[in-house]
């Protein structure tokens, strides 16, 4: 059996080696043809048993007697297969269709047969701490949802005045925006550099350009493979070169071609160069404009929103909003794909089901409130929480890792406290207790989940080969 290391030499399909190297060394995934139809071929290797043993459905685990029969049958067949192949050696069989070969059509060459088959090629064993770190995304979102709900209950029970809530959150938003603005500035500088590099490389002849582009555009690669979790700061992945994306993410290369169009179908981030103001200022002005617009629109709409579902009974309102919140949490785009400077992905991001669900929930809830100001503030708050805050979070996660952790911790504490307050009915001791409890619980949950996931990973068995559709690797548009 040829060792797998020989593969890149003679395999037409270049599959990245690095990710799967570990697994490969543990078990060389070479197959004899008969493994295909003797489903009960004995498992080789500890981590991953015979691919077809599991890949061919659960019929694999037969009785030990069957196993034995299969085993000896297989041995016999390998024997006489060898005999037969040695008997007719009329030139080596080539895996080509356009040459007339002196072998029958159903000849199976057991040296080349299925030698491109790989099991779990991109399996990267998760490290515990990275998992924990990545799970903070979920934690953050859940926490923010919890906080929102608690704020609503507070407002609903007239314990918190909506104005204060909105005030705090708005000030937070403004702060966040200023930060974001600063970051954007940095990124542009980085990007300018990158683009110059690209331009220079493209001038040169193609082959080198490809390589240089690859080298130059590593960060952009990650962006392009949008929607991949763990893509960011994943050293292994980024070093792996093109085509890497964790097997879990089914969103890669999605037929709607979201990543593809991300490249060239967005309004250019900067206005026309002719205007006097610098693009950054224009952008700021635009943002402020839209903020004011939303503010006024909400102000105008809030009376209608207030009476929108007044006639609906409360319990159904609770049910609806609970469902919508669930949808929000479920469909939230946790893979913070668009990292730096991908305004596109950031702008596209809220156009997702989850945000709509959350906003709808807030509007539905708003009809329970007593006065128009309540409604207005709640809706505004929800926009800030569900529309803007995620963008900020993702950005933060990009920019500084530590800040991200801090933020998530703060959120956890706040959420716990909020729950405590809400449950206990506004006693601050309860808040502290709740926060402590909540944070402990969440940390525990994170740990357990990460362990569980790592444990689950050994059941992972995906078969890859030249047959499954290749993932197109497309660079960012360089217009």
């Amino acid at each position, binding site marked *: 059996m040829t060792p797998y290391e020989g593969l890149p030499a003679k395999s037409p399909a270049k599959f990245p080696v690095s990710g799967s190297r570990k697994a490969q060394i543990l078990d060389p995934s070479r197959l004899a043809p008969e493994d295909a139809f003797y489903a009960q071929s004995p498992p080789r290797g500890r981590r991953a048993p015979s691919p077809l043993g599991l890949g061919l459905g659960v019929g694999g685990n037969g009785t030990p007697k069957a196993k034995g029969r299969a085993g000896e049958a297989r041995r016999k067949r390998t024997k006489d297969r060898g005999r037969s192949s040695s008997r007719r050696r009329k030139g080596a069989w080539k895996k080509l269709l356009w040459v007339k070969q002196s072998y029958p059509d159903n000849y199976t060459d057991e040296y080349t047969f299925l030698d491109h088959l790989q099991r779990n090629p991109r399996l990267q064993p998760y490290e515990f701490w990275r998992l924990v770190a990545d799970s903070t995304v979920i934690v953050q979102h859940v926490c923010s949802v919890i906080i929102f709900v608690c704020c609503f209950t507070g407002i609903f029970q007239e314990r918190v005045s909506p104005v204060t809530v909105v005030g705090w959150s708005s000030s937070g938003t403004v702060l966040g925006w200023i930060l974001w603005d600063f970051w954007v500035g940095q990124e542009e500088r980085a990007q300018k550099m990158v683009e110059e590099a690209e331009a220079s490389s493209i001038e040169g002849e193609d082959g080198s350009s490809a390589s240089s582009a690859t080298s130059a555009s590593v960060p952009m690669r990650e962006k392009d493979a949008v929607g991949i979790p763990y893509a960011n700061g994943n050293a292994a992945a980024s070093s792996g070169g093109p085509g890497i994306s964790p097997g879990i993410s089914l969103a890669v290369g999605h037929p709607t071609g979201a990543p593809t169009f991300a490249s060239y179908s967005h309004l250019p981030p900067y206005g026309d160069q002719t205007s006097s103001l610098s693009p950054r200022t224009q952008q700021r002005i635009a943002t402020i404009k839209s903020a004011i617009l*939303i503010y006024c629109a909400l102000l105008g709409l809030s009376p209608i929103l207030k*009476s929108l579902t*007044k006639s609906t009974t409360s319990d159904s309102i609770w049910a609806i909003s609970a469902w919508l919140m669930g949808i929000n949490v479920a469909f939230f785009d946790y893979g913070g794909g668009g990292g730096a400077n991908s305004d596109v992905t950031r702008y596209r991001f809220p156009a997702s089901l989850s945000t709509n669900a959350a906003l709808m929930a807030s509007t539905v809830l708003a009809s329970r409130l007593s006065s128009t100001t309540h409604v207005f503030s709640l809706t505004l708050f929800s926009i800030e929480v569900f529309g803007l805050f995620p963008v900020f979070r993702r950005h933060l996660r990009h920019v500084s890792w530590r800040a991200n952790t801090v933020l998530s911790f703060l959120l956890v504490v706040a959420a716990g406290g909020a729950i405590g307050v809400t449950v206990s009915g506004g006693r601050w001791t309860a808040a502290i207790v709740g926060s402590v409890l909540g944070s402990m619980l969440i940390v525990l949950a994170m740990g357990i989940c990460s362990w569980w996931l790592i444990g689950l990973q050994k059941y992972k068995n995906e078969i890859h080969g030249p047959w499954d559709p290749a993932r197109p690797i497309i660079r960012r548009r360089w217009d």
Partner: protein
Amino acid sequence: MHPFSILTVGIFVAGYTTARWDLVTRLYELAIFAWDHDVFTRAVKGFAGVSIIFLAIVYPVSRIASREIVLHPRTGAGGISAREQLKRRGNGLMRIFWPSDAPSSPNPGVLVGWRNSDLDVLVVAILQDTRSVENAIRVGNLFRSSPYPIHRILERCGKSSLQVLGSVNPVVAPTTFNPASITCYTSPRSRFPHLFCPDTKEVMVQVILFDRPHPTRMQYISLAPISLALGDKADKSGKGFPPLDGVEAAEEREWERKQALVEKLKQHTVVRHSRAQKELLLPVIVDQINCSYELNALLQSNIGLIGTRSRRALSVGEHIVESASNLWDLILAWLWYIATEYIWPLQSRLFVFALIAHRAAGEVLLRILDWRLFPGHAALKDVSATAQQVDIRLQQFCYWPIQYLTLRKRKQTWQSITNSHPEYIRFYNSLWLVANDVIIGIALGSYIIENATFVAAQVDKILTAYTIQGLQATIIWLMDWPAGLKLNTELATFLGDLFLWVIDYWAGCMAMLRPYLPGIIHFIGFSSFAGATMPISLFSDLVSLLTLHIYSFYVAAARIYNWQLTIIISLFHLFRGKKRNVLRNRIDSCDYDLDQLLLGTILFTLLFFLLPTVFVFYACFAVARMVVIGIKAGLDTALACLNHFPLFALMLRFKDSRRLPGGIMFELRDVGNEKFPTVEQREGSAPTSFIHLKSVPLPLRAMLNEYFQLGNRISKHYVSPGVILCLITGRFVPPIHRKNLYSLQYSMLPKQRVGIYELWARVTEKDAKVGDGAYDLGLVNGGFGGNGYVGGGSGNDGYGHRRKGSGNGVGRVRVGRG
């Protein structure tokens, strides 16, 4: 002999003898003398000898001669013998069409008829007179005193003149078979004749027995079923009316697809057989059969005259006697002359004036009804049922004279020429329908007038109950959470108040109208003396007037609903990160700003939660609208039934089904050979098949065909997915256009009515040139179509089409009748 005269003769004889006694004695002596010189014996011997000679020689010779005459008549085609004709044509199929009412008595006769090809004969008459029929035909004696010129009927029957085909039951049996003069034997036992053609194996005989249709009873047979509708409605009515032209287009496409398939099938036909002449002759033969009755009658009437010399001139005395006997007739004739010369023209002229005046009035009205503000807009008759009804009636009135003229032309020629029978049926059908209509109308009208107040009260009650109070109740119900639906209270109250307010206003109008209601009902009642269709159409108009508010509600609600739906859909696109590209009419992927998305979300939520409220109102009014449309459709159908029910045709169908031919059918009869008189004929008979040709009456399905068309047209209009989609998306559902509904009713009218001048010309022309009535009608229309109503013509309107296309439309008429 009379006894008296015997007595007188006796007295005379006695007196004479006594007067001339000496002469008697002389004779006596002479007799004694002759006896003495045995004169008597010699005389007797001589007589005996002569008679013996006669018996021995003269009589046989004369018999032989007569037989020879019978055997070899001097016919023109007699030159070729049967054999070589058959050789010339391969094996032959002898086809004999034999009238079923031909005498089947065994006495001899001559077959007269058409010889379409020399093995294809059609027997018209069997003349008992065996002598010189042929000359008589050639000279034309047999056609003497025919009511109408004979050539017309002959040229209708394929230009070939009658001739002697052979003989029936000849005294002397022929020896060979000669297709030029066939010999048939009839026996009282079977209606089928038996052709004598021995020992010719190549010949096969088809004896086809046909029942002569009775032309004076207007019976006839035809290959294609009679068409009760005028054939010139080729253009599909109702083009360009949104839901229906979809239907029409679909039909059109299906038709074209099938047509393409048919073309392909033509290519796939492998062996294409050339049409034999016999087969091509079938239509001609049908005509001949149609004509055979009259010709037979003519021949039979004239057969007595054959051979008798023409009457000698009368002597003076006889003249006097005749004149004396005819004096009374003379007076009568003179009176008749007076009448025809002075009174009748006066009357007819008056009548014609009346007719033309009526026609002109009708013309004016029709123009008014057909007047359009802008070309392409709806004319008056498209809007109101009453106008439509009046229009139909007027058009019928305008068409009747023409029809009548056509029928009179029919009287002026042979009855066998059957082109105008559908015209006749149509004419009387419309007469009958109008009569019916009026009768029913009188009953209805009298009822309505008698208790007008009651009817008015009823109408008023129903109207208020359903269109006002019912609606109010429904709206109020909708305003507070109907059926547990949690609508948005504010919006519901707003809409409800709005509609309620309008309804109140409308109720006020109704209240103002109420006192006049009995008057209106009275008017309707009176109008119904012009036929039951009048009140119905009036009522339908009344309904559409009194439910105006529902209509407006429907339109308004539909507008709001549709608008909201569109906005929601576009917002939905916004969520999917797409947008509708109006230029390319497709969905593009597009990226929005954050604020756009947030606002979009909120608006979406807003509209989404408001949608049910609006929808409920819309649905309510849409249902009401549909009900109204349904009522009107029902009324329109009733109108169609009253206007177009093929009453007359149905009665004909049950009275004399042969007047409505729906095609022909053949029945294979197996007539055993034992039916045939004598043994030598049986053994000498070629293989013969006996077929009975019958006329199939028109099936009821074909008569009521228009009704089925109407039915599926309405259903297609209102049950089509397009309309349902309109209902769901809140777009406006147009009611079915009158033209689509009424195209049925115009199907018995020409699409181009004859103009006044034309009518004048045709009425006043003296002896109508005899011929194909419909043909002339077609010509007239064609001639008139050019300078007709180009002024009133409107662009995309169906009638406009008709006027413009009337020229070729008339062409189609001709084809249809041909």
